[in-house]
């Protein structure tokens, strides 16, 4: 028998087969995530159909500029994440570290802006929680409240996913920093982390127009 590479796990014949299996496993996990978020998207759609004016009115409270900036940050972070995987395939250790750190800081920047927005909404009495006053004003305050329920749950769940991503990217950066060379196993793991990161970006790509841009002119 030939000698097995150190990165090759048990049931697999070669690294390529192992990589294909790992990639497919990650996509299956992401499929479950699609449905996790999908339930919220379908709920949002149903109530938006029922209360178009209330949702449009409530959406105008959101800052579309901050939303657009945050979309830009996430798109750029995805670009750097793709470059980190690209650099890892070429064994460019320092570049991988640089791109991972850039990805992480852009992710943190997104969370910072999102947190600032939530704070603004808290100060404007737009948080629909028991114990807090909710004052959206306008003609449809109750429908606005429903919109903000969806807004906080959807952006909150997204932020939790992004926070997990930021922590993982930071962890991977530490790994790259402490190791002297990049191995096959690490490249594969980084690719899977990249898939997760891009998925979280894709969720935001749909949240942004649905939540921020439906107010119109």
């Amino acid at each position, binding site marked *: 028998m030939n000698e097995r590479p150190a990165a090759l796990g048990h049931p697999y014949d070669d690294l390529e087969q192992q990589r294909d299996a790992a990639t497919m496993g990650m996509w299956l996990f992401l499929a479950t995530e699609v449905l996790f978020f999908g339930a919220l998207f379908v709920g949002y759609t149903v109530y938006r159909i029922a209360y178009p004016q209330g949702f449009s009115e409530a959406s105008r409270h959101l800052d579309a500029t901050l939303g657009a900036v945050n979309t830009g940050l996430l798109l750029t972070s995805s670009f750097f994440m793709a470059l980190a995987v690209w650099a890892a395939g070429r064994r460019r250790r320092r570049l991988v570290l640089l791109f991972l750190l850039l990805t992480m800081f852009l992710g943190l920047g997104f969370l910072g802006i999102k947190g600032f927005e939530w704070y603004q909404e808290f100060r404007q009495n737009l948080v629909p929680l028991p114990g807090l006053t909710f004052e959206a004003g306008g003609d449809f305050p109750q429908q606005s409240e429903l919109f903000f329920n969806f807004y906080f749950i959807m952006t909150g769940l997204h932020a939790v996913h992004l926070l997990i991503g930021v922590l993982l990217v930071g962890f991977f950066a530490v790994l790259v920093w402490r190791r002297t060379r990049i191995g096959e196993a690490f490249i594969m793991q980084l690719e899977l982390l990249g898939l997760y990161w891009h998925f979280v970006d894709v969720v935001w*790509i749909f949240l942004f127009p649905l939540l921020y841009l439906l107010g119109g002119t």
Partner: protein
Amino acid sequence: MNDTDSFFSYLLVFLALLALLAATVVVARVDVGRLNLALGLGIAFTKALLIVLFFMHLRHARRLTWVAAAAGLFWLAILFLLTLSDVLTRVWTPAVGG
């Protein structure tokens, strides 16, 4: 096996994504009625497709991975179709005496 794309192609995809972001912001400021939603979602789908195909390497992935990726979309489509076929066609009648 390393089948990631070139640096240049990632850069092109990134620039396209930024252009689409600019487009979605501009389109939202112009009131074209019901078309606003269609355009916003259309641009979002295009962005998502670019990310999935290039950044997530689905372009180079095996058929089995395509099946796994399509499964998520397929079940999501069922969730939307069956829910909306009810919501959009139901007539709400007030309860008798209620």
